[in-house]
């Protein structure tokens, strides 16, 4: 399972980097989306996904004689959730910026967006 997730994250990274290096601004947006998903999946995978119970205490409390329960680690999920929200906000802004640049430059070709570097 971990291997499958790791390969998926790697594939997403590769596809995302590739799209970001294309000269099209639309592909930049798609690449940004894929890379942020890949990073989220990488965090989730590196933290060790498990099939344990959710980290909630049963209503009646712990069974007598046990100090701990084997539950899943909630931290990676909290991290990924935060990262997804941030990634979503940034992606929305990227989309607006690309649209605005497209309107101004009249092309989505990043090679043509070099007037600032001359």
């Amino acid at each position, binding site marked *: 399972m971990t291997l499958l997730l790791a390969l998926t994250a790697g594939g997403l990274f590769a596809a995302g980097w590739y799209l970001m290096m294309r000269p099209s601004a639309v592909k930049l947006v798609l690449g940004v989306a894929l890379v942020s998903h890949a*990073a989220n999946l990488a965090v989730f995978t*590196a933290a060790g996904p498990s099939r344990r119970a959710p980290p909630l205490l049963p209503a009646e409390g712990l069974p007598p004689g046990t100090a701990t329960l084997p539950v899943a680690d909630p931290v990676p999920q909290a991290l990924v959730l935060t990262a997804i929200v941030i990634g979503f906000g940034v992606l929305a802004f990227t989309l607006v910026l690309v649209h605005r640049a497209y309107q*101004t430059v009249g092309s989505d070709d990043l090679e043509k967006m070099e007037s600032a570097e001359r």
Partner: protein
Amino acid sequence: MNWLVVLPLVIPLLGAAVSLIARGRAFQRGIALAGAALLLAANLGILAVVLCQGVLCVQVGNWEAPFGITLVADRFSAIMLAVAGIVALAGTLYALGTLDGGRERFGAYPLLQLLWAGVCGAFLAGDLFNLFVWFEVMLIASYVLMALGGQRSQLEGGLKYLGVNLVASALFLSAVGIVYGMAGTLNMAHLAVRLPVAGPPGLLSAAAMLFLSAFGIKAAVFPFFFWLPASYHTPPAAVSAVLAGLLTKVGVYALIRTFTLVAVQDVGYTHSLILIVAALTMVTGVLGALAQHEFRRVLSFHIISQIGYMILGLGLFSPLALAGAIFYIVHHILVKTCLFFVSGLAWRLRGTYELERLGGFYGTHPGLCAVFAVPALSLAGLPPLSGFFAKLVLVQASLEMGHYMLALVALGVSLLTLYSMSKIWTLAFWQPAADTPQSPRIAPHRSRGWLLAGAPAVVFAGLSIALGLGAGPFLEVCRQAAGQLLDPQEYIAAVLASGGYACS
């Protein structure tokens, strides 16, 4: 007094929220100014308390470390906070004097306050994930500030800035995941305790390289610097001064923090690599600047070469070198912000940033020349200005460690910096003005605007002189901060004091 460390986050966030709700222009300006002044007062207060009493630490919501959100201010953080407060107040004043009505109406002041919150949060964050979150707060505010105004060059520059920084964020997040997978914690103090016994060292080196790449992109080191000169000269001077002065240094702060507290298991490998990166950063930055003929692009390339000096201090990894790096960061923030302020003043007078079309300020505006000359000579490292002592300490540290080549590179680069500064001086200030008609873009001459825009530049030039004259005492403070970085027991004890989880 621990509650003090919450203020640098509460003040700007509250200010941003209030000025987003009440959108009157005069009101937003007032809130921005009051917020920046309060922030400076709070940050200076934190510096004073930290210097007297030691590390300040707050567990937000009373969740004990390492389970909750930890805010820590050690000496290094407190110094950075104090400088950030100074830049915040000066940047706000400059923006009040120079920003146009359109940018003001579309939220420049709330964005600036969010930027302060992000920067201060990054300096205070006690765990890696919160460092990531505060970085994002800071970056999102800077993305919008970069593009605000919607000129073609801004949109183009902003897109490059955005794309490259998103790559850095993804790398940072992946590194955070790897570290969490190894140690089961992200609290930096807890990591310093746990990482030496957790996991294979090779995996930590992989995470360290990801950190180096992620923060290296944000700090604009070789070979990740290309986004900086493509974007920093596009927004108005008020914005680019703050970005140039403060933002790349947050990347340097994060590099120093992670490579003194977290990724220190294989110093021989990681820090040697940092030394190579530092030398290449210094050289490529200064060579890039030689080829430029636009005021702010010359300055942007010099940011890169100066970042190399700071990273050099980290790579040498001795108490003196780290003290030099901290000294250099403070010096560079003051000087570079001042130079960008001056470039903006020149633009207000002539309506251009092209050095060929500027000129003659020596005859018409001798005051402006003085305010340029001080930070320019300080950047090149002439005594008795702050840049001289910053470079002296770093060169001394590299000689002590036997890195003669690095000392040679540092001295050579500072010579080329002097050449580059004298190029600006000759073209923009000394030689007679070209006969080009004045551009219609010049803002109407408002006396209040000139006072607000000129005062921060003068004060920063004065601070550079003061830092040079008071180099001895300030270097002592930097030495103590560096000592705390190299022996993080006090930091760890302050963060994990209540928990007792240090050994678990």
